[in-house]
């Protein structure tokens, strides 16, 4: 048979052929677990990609509905014994879809741009801060003024100050140890949504690093990591983000670029072209596990559990490290069943496929509810928002925090730490 490829390069087609249809990935796939449809399983999606690639008269549009319903959580990649690079094939397919089958709708495209550009995010953030100050979000939720999908998103919002971390802080933070305890200098990746909505996570990250002998600085000119674009099939925009970041990080003198958002880390480190040799890209939990000369003196007397972000657990293979940090921070650490299963956030997925997303979230929330912890820790903004919204909607008063925030909380039990950072009041 003469090979005509519609979708893949021969290399990628070869990658696709690594799938031997064994089905060992099925049980790990959240969408298949919900609806039990072969077409909504990893094996089914790979088969559809193959047909789109090889068959002339194939209903590619119909097939893409199943590929659209994929979370991109990569649990199947972890489960696969045959080493199928599902994530890569998925992004290639989506990029083809955007170019050949169905471009992103105008509103979807705008939404994506608004949420990933500093200027529009700044405006949205200011607005959200006002909404929160006037408690309009509570009103909206109480009176059910907006569609559920939007109310749900509001419910997950952290307390917003209105200003981005990078706008309100210096770019350089010196180590707070004596010279002989100094560990060098690291750069911090601030991102887009993280910078505007999760300034507290950045602040905690910087504090813990400073306290343990690191100088921290925020390189200028950095931008969104491009993960959301890449997942939506907008290859060019993703590449553009990457190029701008590459320029921003060119020649900076740091031991590593520390990232505290799993999705950004996965995008930055797994994309070809980022030079891991000159500037390793690391997740904060990975970086700190063996670099905490001054662990917290006291532990939080709280019951804490941890939900693993897919982009940490599956995409970057960072599994135990956050747990190690939490062990240092709290007295009672409770293992969350199915911690490695997606929470249904998956970037814009929770907006686009809210039914499926809610199904998947429900299962997660049930597990958390059964454990009844005081704090739920995680390590990615999307998961953070999704889990917090799910808990609030279920009337569970359990705060969600980034792992590093929990560690910082433990440090803050110590007066000298509080004093050093002016946190006494």
């Amino acid at each position, binding site marked *: 048979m003469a*090979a005509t490829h519609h979708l893949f390069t021969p290399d990628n087609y*070869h990658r696709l*052929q*690594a*799938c*031997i*249809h*064994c*089905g*060992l*990935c*099925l*049980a790990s796939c959240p969408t*298949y677990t919900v*609806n*039990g*449809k*072969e077409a909504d399983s990893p*094996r089914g999606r790979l088969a559809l990609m193959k047909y789109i690639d090889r068959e002339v008269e194939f209903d590619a549009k119909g097939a893409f509905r199943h590929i659209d319903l994929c979370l991109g959580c990569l649990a199947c990649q972890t*489960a*696969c*014994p*045959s*080493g*199928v690079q599902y994530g890569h094939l998925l992004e290639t397919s989506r990029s083809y879809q955007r170019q050949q089958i169905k471009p992103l709708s105008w509103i979807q495209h705008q939404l994506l741009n608004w949420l990933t550009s500093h200027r529009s995010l700044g405006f949205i953030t200011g607005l959200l801060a006002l909404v929160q100050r006037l408690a309009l979000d509570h009103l909206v939720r109480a009176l059910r003024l907006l569609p559920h999908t939007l109310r749900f998103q509001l419910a997950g919002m952290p307390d917003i100050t209105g200003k981005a971390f990078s706008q309100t802080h210096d770019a350089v933070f010196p180590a707070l140890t004596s010279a002989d305890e100094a560990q060098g200098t690291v750069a911090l990746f601030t991102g887009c949504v993280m910078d505007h909505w999760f300034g507290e996570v950045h602040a905690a990250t910087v504090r813990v690093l400073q306290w343990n002998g690191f100088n921290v600085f925020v390189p200028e000119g950095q931008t969104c990591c491009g993960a959301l674009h890449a997942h939506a099939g907008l290859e060019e925009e993703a590449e553009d983000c990457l190029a701008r970041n590459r320029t921003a990080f060119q020649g900076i003198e740091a031991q590593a670029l520390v990232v505290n958002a799993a999705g950004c880390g996965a995008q930055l480190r797994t994309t070809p072209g980022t030079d891991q040799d000159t500037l390793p890209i690391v997740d904060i939990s990975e970086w700190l596990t063996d670099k905490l000369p001054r662990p917290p003196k006291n532990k939080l007397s709280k019951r804490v559990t941890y939900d693993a972000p897919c982009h940490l657990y599956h995409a970057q293979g960072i599994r135990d490290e956050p747990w190690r940090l939490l062990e240092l921070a709290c007295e009672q650490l409770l293992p969350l069943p199915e911690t490695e299963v997606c929470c249904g956030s998956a970037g814009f997925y929770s907006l686009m496929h809210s039914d499926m997303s809610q199904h998947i979230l429900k299962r997660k929330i049930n597990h958390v509810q059964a454990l009844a912890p005081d704090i739920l820790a995680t390590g990615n903004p999307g998961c953070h928002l999704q889990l917090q919204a799910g808990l609030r909607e279920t009337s569970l008063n359990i705060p969600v925090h980034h792992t590093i925030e929990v560690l910082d909380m433990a440090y803050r039990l110590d007066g000298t730490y509080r004093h050093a950072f002016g946190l006494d009041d």
Partner: protein
Amino acid sequence: MPFVPRGAGTGLSGGAICDGGVIIQLSRMNRLLAIYPDDCYAVVQPGVVNNYLNLQARPLGLGFAPDPSSQAACTIGGNLAENAGGPHTLKYGVTSNHVLGQTVVFPDGEVATYGGPYPVRSGPDFSTFLIGTEGTIAISTEIIVRLVPLPPDVTTMLAVYKSVADATDSVSAILAAGVLPNALELIDNLCIQAVESHLKAGFPMEAAAVLLIELDGTKQMMQTKAETVGRVCKSNAAVSFSIAKSEEERQRLWLGRKHAVGSLGKITPAFYTNDGVVPRSRLTDIMQTSYRIAKEHDLSVAHVCHAGDGNIHPLICYNPDESGGSQRATACSTEILMACIEMGGSITGEHGIGIEKRDLLPQMFSEVDLEHMQRLRNGLNPEGLLNPGKIFPNGSRCGELRGNVSIPRGTWI
């Protein structure tokens, strides 16, 4: 219109594929209806995943014994239809030993119930009726399965060999020494290479073959038996023999075994899984024969075997894009199966007949045997609408599969 039941689609003989017609996907009938820990049984819908049942039963000190390597995905309904086995078949038997009863739906819509939860029975015993018929007579909709108490303890051992024959000789010797392990698995060099390339299970890369041997029981019982096994392996030229020291090490070894077949995708674009069986005493012969036949076809072959049961899985590596590639693999596999039959064995140990081996069935059964089997099937599936074209060779009354199936043989799902 024909219709075909399908569980998780992990079957390896093409039983759940359908060329025109309707697939009845049972994976959503996935409710575990009840577990009765005191009476050691569970009632499940057919789409319950094997692993899931085990995870639910474990806290109660119970387990479902058949443990196919695909247990993370395959369904109890699929296990029943294929009469699946697994590494622990040696001691605990196959699925038919663990099904107490079931409710089935016949093609005309009639519903019947066979067997029941009681463990002893006399009179005509229909509890295992239809097991292994690969969804060609009726569809199981509710299954009562036996749960067995989990052993108090297990010991997992690894014996390493420089020659495959030494390993296969050890297999019979272990059983002859009066030890019945609950699992006795062989993995050969090519498979070890594939597994170790991504898992680091702990199989030495230079070994020609390893035996994974597991005992269960109380600590004292196992200690003397483990010593016997060690002695037997060494006297059959094992270059090393070790006992897993921690649960983690044990789990790693087993993960290596369970991922052995899947891992092969890393080293070959495609492979054909063969499922031959020989009497245990002929294991050494059949392994040598399998390597020889593959060599004659200029193909490489890897093996994982439920060695204690004489069930071999030659995994024949080939390139489907090469012209004649899949035909050569098929021819190679058929020759190996014929060798199994000559040695007094069978063409399938656990993967079933499906479409893949239906033409080989007359090599195993006489015309009269086949005629009787088909009379039974045609009586209960008179229009031949349920899963046509499976199990029985051409010339059967039922609708034949049209044309060639586009999925290469050996990779049917």
